[in-house]
Structures are given as C-alpha cells and as structure tokens.
C-alpha cells in the first residue's frame, strides 16, 4: 500500500521533512506508527494525534492508504 505522510510542528523537525511516501503492508494505523517509531527514534517522546484522509482517527483504525497526518499539539500564543 502506498501511503503519503504529512508531518507537523516538532514532528517535522524530527523527520526532517514535512512529507514523505512509504510502501507498507501493514493493516492498522498503529502498525504504520511502529515503523515510523523505528525509523525516527525521537518520535516516541512526542505526543501526537493521527489523521487519515483528513479525518482524526484512533490508532486501531484500519489503514486505507492515501494520506496520513501526524499532528502534535501546539501551546504557543
């Protein structure tokens, strides 16, 4: 499955890119996160939510391909 991933805020600093594409055989969003955790070690220290195809989802959601976004909270004002 071809997945396009968007990174925001601190996460984009860890991944050093705002967007990338991955080929993946996993079934769930959590499986994708495990792969990303291995690829980017510091990702584990960040709290974030996941959106799939522009909708916030739980990590137990089935991957449907297309677009994933990793979204950390911002505090600044």
């Amino acid at each position, binding site marked *: 499955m071809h997945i396009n991933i968007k990174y925001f805020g*601190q996460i984009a600093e860890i991944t050093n890119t705002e967007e990338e594409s991955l080929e993946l055989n996993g079934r769930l969003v959590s499986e994708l996160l495990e792969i990303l955790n291995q690829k980017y070690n510091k990702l584990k220290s*960040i*709290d974030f939510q996941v959106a799939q195809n*522009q909708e916030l989802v*739980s990590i137990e959601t089935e991957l449907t391909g297309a677009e994933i*976004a990793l979204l950390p*909270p911002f505090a*600044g*004002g």
Partner: protein
Amino acid sequence: MGRYNRHIILSEIGQVGQDKISNAKVLVIGAGGLGCPVLQYLTAAGIGTIGIIDFDVVNISNLQRQVLYGSSSLGHNKAIAAKSRLDDLNNEISIIAYPEKLTHKNAIPLFSEFDIIVDGSDNFETRYLVNDACIITNKPLVFGAIYKFEGQVSVFNYNNGPSYRCLFPNPPKKDTVPNCSEIGVLGVLPGIIGSMLANEVLKIVLAIGNVLSGKLLCYNALTSHTLTLKINRNEVQIHSVLIDKDNFENRNSQVNCEVETPIVSVTELLPAENIQFIDVRELNELPKIEGLRVTSIPLSQLESHLNKIDSNKKKVLFCQSGIRSKRAITILQDAHITNCFSLKEGALELNNYTKTFTNER
C-alpha cells in the same frame, strides 16, 4: 459616515448584524501574540463588551509581534495596557481588563459573564482549563495555537461540536512542547492566526458562513499550505469533564501538566497479587479479560463509583489503548486516591499476556 458603515452596507451584515455585534460579549484569554490582533479587530468591529484577562507585563521582546503595545507600555500589565490602546480605538464599547491569572477558581464565574471565549493563551495548563470551563459553562471556544511558523485554528464546544479534549484528550508530558519564548516565533504568524480567530468570532456572532467547528485548520506560514482535518465529538471526553464539574473550582491548575501519570507494563504485573485491575472501558467493549479478576468502571462513571476502589491494593487501570486509563488516573489523583497506575498496553495485550501466563502454569 458612521463608524460601522462598511459593515452595514454588506447585505450579509446590515444594521441587524451590526446590532448583533454590539450586543455580543467576548472574553479573550491572554493579550499576547494571538490576543492582540483578536482584540484589535473585535474592538474595531464594535463587539459591545470585551473582556481581557492577562496577568503578565509587557516586555521588550513582545513588541516584535504583540502589536497593541509600544515603548510606553513596557512594564505595564498587558490587560490594562491593551485596554488603554483599545479604548482609544473605539470608545463606544465596553472593555474590561482583568489583570490577573485565570484559575480554576475564577474561570467559571468569569466565563458565565460572556457569550464567546477566545483562547490566546500560551501554555497547556491554561488551554485545558479554558476548554473544561467552556464545556461546563457551555460557551463556544475559539481556539488558536502557534509553533514557530505553524498555526492551528478551531472552534470547540459550538452547537454540540467537539472540544479540545476530543482532539487532544490529555496535556502532553511536561516540557515536551516548547513555547514561543523558548524557541521563537515568526512575528506575523500570530497576526495571521489571530485574525482568523477574530473572523470565527464574527461568524458565530453574525450566524453567517461556516464556523470552523468539528475541524482543525493547520496553517504553515513558510509553505502557505493549509490543511483542514475533521474532528469528531468524543462523548467520553466531554462526560469526563462534566462529571468533575462540582469539583472544578478545587482543582489544582498545576495537576494537568506537572504530575506524571504513573505507568506500568503488563510484563511487570503478573502474578497479580494484591492488585485491583480496573477496566475503564465502556461495558460492551471487547475483548473481555479472561483469567483475571477485573473491576469494571467505565471512565464516564468513575467519579461516582470511587467506593468500588480498594484502598488496600495497588490499582492498575486499563482501557483499549492507554489513553482513557491515563485520564482516569488524573481523576483518582484529584480524589486523593494513591497507588494507582495506568497500564501502558491495552486490553488486548493484557488478555494475551494473562492467557500465556495461565497456560504456562
């Protein structure tokens, strides 16, 4: 030519709409980077009553982006300095300065005086406090937050829409998200995001256009990209705030961010002697845990079932993924129940582990 002529000649607003603006009462939390543009536009638009709460004073490093202040404001309280500039901008409206810190004690009576709350604060402690107080007082919350070159905008708690906790259920671990004073921010960014917040306020007041409820708008000033994500209302989150309502004033503002949730892993737990396992999932959620005595108290009912908790045992709370159990821990901590731990893994892993463990024996 009247002050509000350019509004009134718009058919979408007219005198009727301008009267709605004049009758509206809006409270702005924080008169910093986001608060300044929000206040400036709401004052210019003629919002009838504007409250400003900020305990901080104007510092020279604020002037790069906090456009209401000048050299003469340095060292002055921001709420008061903002009011003095805004009174000059529009003397036909009422502007109230609250030069104090927003706390669990003053939030509910203060919010009750206004129709709409705007969150332009700069820390998670205040953001969760504002969100919870908006749920309790049933006020729409116009939310904006910034990080370096990026911003997030949404309207929470509007017409039964989601709240901030439906997006981010719990505050992040302390010191994991730096703020503007630690890492810097592009000066114009709060100007852009703050203007969007003022726009959302006016749409709510006028009941025109589409309010950004149930959506989070993400903006990147460097790429000019925007992405709008859909957020769903999470009844469990809303309920967990409402059940704690009577205790709200007594809550310690520090609790949200400064107490680390104690976490254990399944591998550290068995054999489960002198442990009370508490399942905070709703009663119909699967899998059921086999081979282990479990007390079921859904998160939404936890507050009213504290008597089911065994004070002599170590308490291990679990849910599907470890998010609700963390929230449950804060409820128990607030009730001064100690020796509580959130299970790192979810019910599925616990079940698998218990099965293996039972089979081995």
